[in-house]
């Protein structure tokens, strides 16, 4: 039952925020903050009380499970389950949700209640995605995240350069994700019908569908349907077009959620669904996926260097970082998959930090154009130091979580795909270039405009410090996270090697 509450709390909190606006502007903020902290506390308590060791044969892999029939004639259930991976991501959602509320404290001034309704609905949808096991339910939550995000960008976003309006960005975001969601829906339905024609039983259940024997050409297309749906969200080049616009035009809270959590739903989807449902096809597809990951790493990094808008720069770096995740997921190595999970968490912290910082800069100088920044180091106390810390995290400085993630990915992938790792390592140099370019353009050099600016207040300082401490803590002692997700990563890696074997055997037979 606690799983249901994890999903319901944000939704209920959202409704409450909406109605609470009549009690004043502050009420929705405090309610939203309390809601997300509540989610965070529940998941941390679950984490402390849970046992995440690899289950023995026949035992359930889930720490908690909850299922009840929903539409029995189509075999649709409300089936929620939680394991180490989903727990970590739910906790992350709670944490970043709280940060998103905090960083919009002064930024959002109109329709505060409705803003928080949308924000909490996104987060509720995300929690649902991380917990849903029934494929129909998963799809429902997957789509449910989009609509409030659309409103968040369209109603509270910034308009950037001419022609880059927030409505346009929101529409583009919506069309991309909607179209990809459609592909996933088709793939899900096809999978269900194949299973129906095989066994005469209609079911959307994850456990049931996993064993489905799909005939060969179709299986590949279905795998591709899932892959593209997740690839759009990750995003993988060439499906990344929505991301820079959405990030640049979204309010800070939107960017934080988008980079910190929404992108992770895609990686989660791959680990949970795309790979286990189609192990053979995924193994065969791995070279293509890895190549796409490499393209993402390099292309994202090169484009990041060419941006003048600070938020667009950070957005492109996300594309580059997610390339590492994609490579890891298709490497079939436990070390790399564990690294990808750490990198997901690390990227959530570092990109949230950078987005929050650029939001704080925006509140002070009312621009995101780096050509009109410069020399801020002498104008603002403390913030440049924090920027340097998160920039260092973003370029993978050791002792930050990003380093642990990236290097585990590279160490894990190297034995199976050394060439991929060599090319991906170029991304490490490029990461240094774009990260330090940001630093240089914003904080170094002569002052673009004179006059000191206000330093961070306690709220801003606290957010930055918390993120930084977490980044370094995970960077120096990631073991608690690794132990939590080991039981998830190991089977996925195994499944992959089995899949490769099967594919090889099938090839021999042919």
């Amino acid at each position, binding site marked *: 039952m606690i799983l249901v509450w994890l999903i319901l709390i944000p939704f209920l909190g959202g409704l409450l925020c909406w109605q609470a606006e009549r009690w004043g502007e502050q009420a929705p903020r405090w309610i939203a903050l309390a809601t997300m902290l509540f989610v965070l506390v529940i998941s941390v308590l679950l984490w402390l009380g849970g046992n995440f060791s690899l289950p023995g044969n026949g035992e359930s892999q889930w720490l908690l499970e909850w299922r009840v029939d929903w539409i029995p004639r189509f075999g649709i259930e409300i089936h929620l389950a939680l394991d180490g991976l989903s727990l970590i991501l739910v906790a992350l959602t709670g944490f970043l949700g709280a940060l998103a509320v905090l960083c919009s404290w002064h930024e959002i001034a109109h329709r505060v209640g409705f803003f928080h309704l949308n924000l909490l609905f996104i987060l509720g949808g995300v929690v649902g995605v991380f917990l849903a096991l029934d494929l129909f339910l998963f799809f429902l939550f997957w789509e449910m995240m989009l609509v409030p995000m659309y409103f968040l960008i369209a109603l509270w976003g910034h308009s950037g350069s001419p022609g880059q309006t927030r409505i346009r960005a929101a529409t583009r975001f919506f069309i991309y994700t909607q179209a990809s969601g459609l592909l996933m829906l088709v793939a899900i339905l096809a999978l269900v019908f194949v299973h129906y024609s095989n066994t005469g039983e209609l079911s959307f259940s994850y456990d049931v569908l996993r064993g489905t024997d799909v005939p060969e050409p179709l299986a590949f297309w279905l795998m591709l349907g899932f892959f593209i749906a997740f690839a759009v969200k990750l995003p993988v*080049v*060439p*499906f*990344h*077009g929505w991301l*820079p616009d959405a990030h640049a035009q979204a309010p800070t809270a939107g960017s934080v959620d988008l980079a910190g959590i929404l992108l992770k739903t895609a990686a989660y989807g791959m680990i949970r669904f795309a790979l286990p449902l189609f192990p053979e096809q995924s193994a065969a597809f791995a070279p293509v996926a890895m190549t796409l990951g490499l393209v993402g790493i390099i*292309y994202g990094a*090169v*484009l990041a*260097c*060419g*941006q003048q808008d600070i938020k667009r720069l950070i957005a492109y770096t996300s594309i580059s970082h997610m390339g590492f995740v994609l490579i890891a997921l298709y490497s079939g190595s*436990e*070390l790399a998959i*564990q690294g990808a999970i750490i990198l997901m968490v690390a990227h959530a912290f570092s990109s949230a930090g950078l987005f929050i910082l650029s939001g704080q800069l925006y509140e002070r100088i009312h621009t995101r154009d780096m050509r009109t920044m410069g*020399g801020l*180091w*002498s104008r603002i*106390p*403390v913030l440049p*130091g924090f920027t*340097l810390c998160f920039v*260092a995290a973003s370029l993978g*400085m*050791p*002792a930050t979580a990003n*380093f*642990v993630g990236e*290097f*585990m990915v*590279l*160490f*894990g992938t*190297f*034995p199976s795909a*050394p060439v991929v*790792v*060599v090319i991906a*390592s*170029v991304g*490490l*140099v490029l990461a*240094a*270039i774009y990260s*330090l*370019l940001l630093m*240089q353009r914003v*904080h*170094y*050099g*002569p*002052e673009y405009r004179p006059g000191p600016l206000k330093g961070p207040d306690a709220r801003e300082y606290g957010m930055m410090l918390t993120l930084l401490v977490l980044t370094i803590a995970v960077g*120096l*002692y*990631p*073991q608690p996270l*690794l132990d939590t997700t*080991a039981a998830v990563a190991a089977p996925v890696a195994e499944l992959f090697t089995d899949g490769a074997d099967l594919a090889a055997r099938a090839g021999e037979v042919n």
Partner: protein
Amino acid sequence: MMVTPVVLSFLFPLMGTLILAFSAGRLGPRASSVIGVGSVGLAALATLWAVMGHGGGTEGVTLWTWIAVGDFQPTIGLAVDGLALVMMSVITGVGFLIHLFAAWYMTGEAGITRFYAWMNLFVFSMMLLVLGDNLLLLFLGWEGVGLCSYGLIGYYYQGLDNARAAFKAFVVTRIGDVFLALGLFLIFMELGTLDIATVLARAPELWAEGSATANLAALLVLGGALGKSAQVPLHTWLPDAMAGPTPVSALIHAATMVTAGVYLIARLNGLFLLAPDVMLLVGVIGAVSLLLAAFAALAQTDIKRVLAYSTMSQIGYMFFALGVGAFDAAIFHLVTHAFFKALLFLSAGAVIISCHHEQDMGKLGGLWRKLPVAYGGFVVGGAALVALPLVSAGFFSKDEILWQAMAAERTGLLIAGLLGAVLTGIYTVRLILGTFHGEPGSDHARHPEPGTSVFTHHLPLVVLAVLSTFIGAWIYPGLGGLFPEAPGDTVETGHTLLQVLAMGAAIAGLALAGWLFLMRRSWLDNITDKGAGAGLWKLWHHAWGFDALFDRALVRPWQWSVRMLRFDFINLFMNLPALIARAFNAGLVRSQNGRTRSYAVVMVFGTTVILLALALAPGGGA
């Protein structure tokens, strides 16, 4: 018990960093200096304690397991042996003196808290680099010192040039770091461990000498060492790094960080011995670097740039020693170089501050009477740099290196080393004459304000000056037992001959320089002013044009591709469906024009088409 002092030796600087970083401007300059200098002083005391308590051999302690997934088990673990202790002593000992001097040098600068926070963080990272018992922790320190170097080169953040120099230093060394990282991936894949002792034990068991894997692993590690230690071709960042405050140049870009590559190769000696070809390459790169840099040092006008190229040149000697298998000699030179180069840089700093931030030799001159302490520092440090026989520290270590090259029968390297010694003499004399003798070139040099603080100005210079004499060579303990036998350890023939040769080279350099600069000054100026001489001068001044080459071959194509890709052409491609939809829309909008005549035409046309289709369809119309 060794653990306490060793852990304290890097915890003190870390605490210093944390206190300074979180003071958020509440500490005054004096308090910041006390914390910054004091933490390194305490670290030096802790190191002394560790040295006293060291019982020989390797003592290790694992603080905690960093990451554990399957075989991948890097730890936060320390290994303390003679090499680590020597490095720790240099880092904290010389580091303390430099921090102390910085208290004088940085007086009145804004942001002194930030300065000391970075400096302490640097000492902390450097300590982890030399203490780490596995390659991943070493890499942590390795990257950490790079970040601190970045922060300190760009310390004067208002100058865009400083920011560029910092950026360049970080990115160029990062290229080397990526090679090192690839080396780690390869080593872990092949040997299944990152623990240094285990790597050194397993490598000879699993890899044949000269095998492709061994060569590749050594080559990748070498790539990392080249970047950090500013050797050809990854050396271009070092001269620009002089944009940082002079104590930074002394600590990071002379005494410690730039020698990390030497430490790395010496630490992984077993790996390199399995790859004789790479060893030869190490020696050749060292020789090339030492000559290139020595020529470049001849033609600099900025005193810090002379010292920067001289550092590169001296590290070239260390690489050269590593290349012939004389690891102990390389570390010996590392230590003496740390003493005398720190002395030279700090003396240069004393000149620069006294002359109101003037560091161009053309605008200095005639200072020797007015700045006696700095002059003394330059003379003693310069003597060690040119390896003045018997009295200087540099003589003993450089002699050892040349001797090992001779014993290893690497004649080419030996000749390069001797030629380098002559050149060193010339540029050192030119530096000292240009800075302290002749006529003052500007008002700043005419009216210098000498440093008067005994504790923060005189003391560090005097102590380093003492260490730069033969005393510095005496206190080096010798690490022969730690390393594989060097070629010169067993033979004795020819050692005297070599010593004569080395002395001759050093003295020849000095004599030649004296003759050129004192007797033939106008002739020399004539040559360098026009024609081929001027061209050569310009080439050396720009250090053989590596910067221009890299600019054309790498930087500009990169900038071009960034500009080309800025508008995200792949994304434009994805907009195609939208454009097609819009085109259809436009077409269909046109059809709905509200004119009855055109509707009738379309209707008749459509009807005809359908009827025709029905009539011609197979089986239709019957």
